């Protein structure tokens, strides 16, 4: 699916088994101008991506943000499945957890997670997502722009917020 230049909010897939937290993360992401799909399990996330479908990407997802503690497939399990998939390994994954356990955090980061957010997730956390998305935009023009802007972190934060990707 090719994105027209005029389109495009980044599409974030949010995964959390708790309804309250799903509602929260959805609002945080929408407030930050992302398109959001929220699902309640790792299995549903993989189905949505089309991973069960001969590894063919059904939908374009720019980032996955997932809770760590979920019944069945944990956020870490989901992370590993994404990173081990040839179609999806380049999608940045962020993990959220209500428990501040250093060994857990390290394991996730070493497992390929871009960021680890402690719950409750704040708008300031969601602001940290944009650089991970900008790194991976498809056209060279966008890539160059992103490189130019990774000069001063403070300055770029304000710039990213104004940057209209539509």
């Amino acid at each position, binding site marked *: 699916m090719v994105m027209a230049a005029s389109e495009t909010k980044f599409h974030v897939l949010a995964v959390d088994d*708790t*309804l*309250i*937290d799903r*509602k*929260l993360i959805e*609002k*945080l992401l929408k*407030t930050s101008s992302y398109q959001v799909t929220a699902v309640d399990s790792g299995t549903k996330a993989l189905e949505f991506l089309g991973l069960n479908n001969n590894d063919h990407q059904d939908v374009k997802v720019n980032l996955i943000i997932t809770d760590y*503690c979920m019944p069945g497939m944990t956020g870490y399990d989901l992370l590993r499945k994404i990173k081990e998939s040839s179609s999806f390994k380049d999608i940045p994954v962020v993990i959220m957890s*209500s428990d501040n356990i250093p060994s857990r955090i390290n394991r996730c980061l070493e497992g390929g997670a871009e960021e680890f957010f402690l*719950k*409750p997730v*704040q*708008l300031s956390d969601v602001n940290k997502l944009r650089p991970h998305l900008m790194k991976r935009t498809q056209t060279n023009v966008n890539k160059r722009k992103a490189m130019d802007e990774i000069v001063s972190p403070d300055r770029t934060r304000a710039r990213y917020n104004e940057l209209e990707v539509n």
Partner: protein
Amino acid sequence: MDLVQLQRQFVDYKTSLYHEGFLDEQFTQLQELQDENNPDFVVEVVSLFFEDSERLLNELARALEQQNIDYKRIDAHVHQLKGSSSSIGAQRVQKVCIAFRNYCEEQNVEGCLKCLQQVRHEYSLVKTKLESLFQLEQQILTAGGSFPM
């Protein structure tokens, strides 16, 4: 009561809730997320918290009545309650949950029962206070006021 008096009462009441530790910064975050596209966001999230909590408190009571107490199960419920209370900023409820989890780990039934009682109490307090806060908000809106003030 006129609008100005209502607004003053609202601010004083809300301040006291923070001051007494019923609510923390996370509640403020929720309010900041509310906008004209989602004017009932805070009430919706808080309502989910009420539903969730009541279910969990019943589960906890049931689990602690069993002959052979399943502490893992209890811990899982308390973990959920801790999470949801933290997500809305219900600080005192969250704090009791932390103590509760410690008693679960120790498999201390007395401690758990005590915590259940405490968490029920804190939950009921914060529920009453939030409902009063929302009522005041409604009165202000009816009297022609708006938020943020």
